[in-house]
């Protein structure tokens, strides 16, 4: 019931969002077969500018929100987010290396920046995984958290160093990428991001019961038959893959990963069988909605979507929080 409500919300937003934009288009003309695509401006605005954007926002929103849920449960810390363990900033380092140091290249229609960015997130994942694997008998969430914080500031220093050494044009490109943007403009990057997201989705499907039991503590979970070490590995890899896919597709877009899970918990309770899918659906709908505002509110200018996610999500979250605690 609850899940279908969130699903309906996402479906509604998905249908509405491509119809609205900074310019008016005629749907009849966009889907008309009598005008060749190369001449059909309405069709091009619909299929090249808007549709990939909406699909991209859905994937990024779902990926970040689900990763947030899993990181918060895995680290047993309500402040955890996709950025906490360094995977997100690993993706940023990859992107900045591509912008600054690498010659331009492309693989199957995907340009250098997203490729390098996803590679960077995998590098960070390897380091985090190494940290966790070093503790054979299940990882202490505190150690993992601490490792992630240190890795984040270390990679942050590398990011600043590359920016400092690059010339002003590259620094400007970097700053621009770090603002995040959903104007994907083509489908190959979306298809590519679907692969890690699908793998993460399989992982997520295995997790809800284990995450519920692990919230009681690893020993209690083990006593009820959860393979804690395995569950933690699955959680770590899935959440990292979906973070890496999201950041390499759209750049770092803040706020979704930390706040959407809490919003959803305030609405549906703490059961991960509900929280995890509901967060993915709501994260997707929320980011599509925020991007819609970002591209229309100040048209023809466009706001970085991260500003909108924080400015709408923040007050909404506080309102829910106070309404519940009153």
């Amino acid at each position, binding site marked *: 019931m609850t899940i279908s409500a969130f699903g309906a919300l996402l479906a509604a937003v998905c249908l509405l969002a491509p119809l609205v*934009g*900074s*310019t008016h288009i005629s749907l009849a003309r966009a889907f008309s077969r009598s005008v060749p*695509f*190369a*001449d*059909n*401006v309405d069709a*091009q*605005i619909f299929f*090249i*500018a*808007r549709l990939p954007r909406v699909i991209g926002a859905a994937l990024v929103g779902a990926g970040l929100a689900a990763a947030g849920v899993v990181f918060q449960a895995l680290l047993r810390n309500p402040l955890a987010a996709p950025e906490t363990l360094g995977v997100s900033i690993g993706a940023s380092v990859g992107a900045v290396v*591509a*912008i600054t140091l690498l*010659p*331009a*290249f*492309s693989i199957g229609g995907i*340009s*250098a*920046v997203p490729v390098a960015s996803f590679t960077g997130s995998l590098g960070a994942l390897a380091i985090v995984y190494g940290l966790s694997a070093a503790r054979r008998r299940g990882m202490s969430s505190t150690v993992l958290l601490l490792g992630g914080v240190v890795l984040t500031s270390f990679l942050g220093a590398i990011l600043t160093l590359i920016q*400092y050494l*690059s*010339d*002003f*044009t*590259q620094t*400007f*490109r970097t700053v*621009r*990428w770090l603002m995040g*943007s959903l*104007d*994907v*403009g*083509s489908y190959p990057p979306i298809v590519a991001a679907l692969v890690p997201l699908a793998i993460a989705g399989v992982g997520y499907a295995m997790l809800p019961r284990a995450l519920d039991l692990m919230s009681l503590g690893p020993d209690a979970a083990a006593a009820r038959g959860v393979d804690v070490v395995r569950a933690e590995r699955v959680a770590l890899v899935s959440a990292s893959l979906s973070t890496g896919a999201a950041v390499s597709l759209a750049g770092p877009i803040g706020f979704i990963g930390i706040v959407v899970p809490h919003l959803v918990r305030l609405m549906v309770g703490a059961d991960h069988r509900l929280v995890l899918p509901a967060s993915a659906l709501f994260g997707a709908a929320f980011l599509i909605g925020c991007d819609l505002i970002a*591209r229309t509110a100040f048209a*023809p*200018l*466009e706001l*970085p979507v991260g500003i909108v996610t924080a400015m709408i999500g923040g007050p909404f979250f506080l309102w829910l929080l106070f309404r519940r605690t009153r």
Partner: protein
Amino acid sequence: MIRRTVVLALTLATITALSAAEPPKRIVSLIPAVTEMIFAMGDGARLVGVSSYDRYPPQVASIARVGGLLDPNVERLLSLRPDLVIVYNTQQELTQRLERAAIPFYLYEHRGLPDITQTVRAVGARIGSAEAANRVAAKMESDLDAIRQSVAGRPRPKTLLVFGRDAGSLRNIDASGGYGFLHDMLDIAGGEDMFADITKQSVQTTTEMILARRPDVIIELRYGDSAQSLDVKRELSAWDALPSVPAVRNHRVYILVGDEFVVPGPRVVDATRKLAQALHPR
């Protein structure tokens, strides 16, 4: 207290007197555009320090580097014993330290194209080369005027002037808005700025906006380190993703390479000429 004030007043008076009497001999310029202006006046030999972003003219390679807008190296700057430092008007921390060290400075402000020749004259007057500066400025003005004349009466194509995007894709596109020296150059070169209605120096634009506004010509500027590894054919083909845009359909997408497009100094004349050639090929 009074004694200190008197001493300060005397020191200031001496500095003023000195600078009025004698043109500076050891100049540090933190602004690439001003460095180019000073060289154009024939006074490059008086420059003892330049910013880390200076690349032109080639002689700057042998001049000491003292950092840039955000990271001026004050220690190295002081060690050059300059008698004039040219700084951005926003570098307040630096100017405060220069004041304490009693080193005269000149505040540079970056605005539109007409302000460039005005800056040439002001800098010239400040370093005691008013006559040479006037010559340089007058030549720039007449050259720009000649370019304007050469395209007068021709149709003015609606132009998207891009100064940055992600390599190999149409993501994170930055274009010139309806204000600033890039816009002014485009105007003189005989193009109608697609974003003339947006009074900002830069506009972060999207594929939707470009599809909707349908520019007749797209000009991309490439400069700095990223221009060195440029694959022009590949970058041009990125625009094929928007086939209904007249500029794409009529093969009127151009990539122009050179730092002169982003340094508001004497070379804006060359830059404007290149824009005019792209917009109005013979």
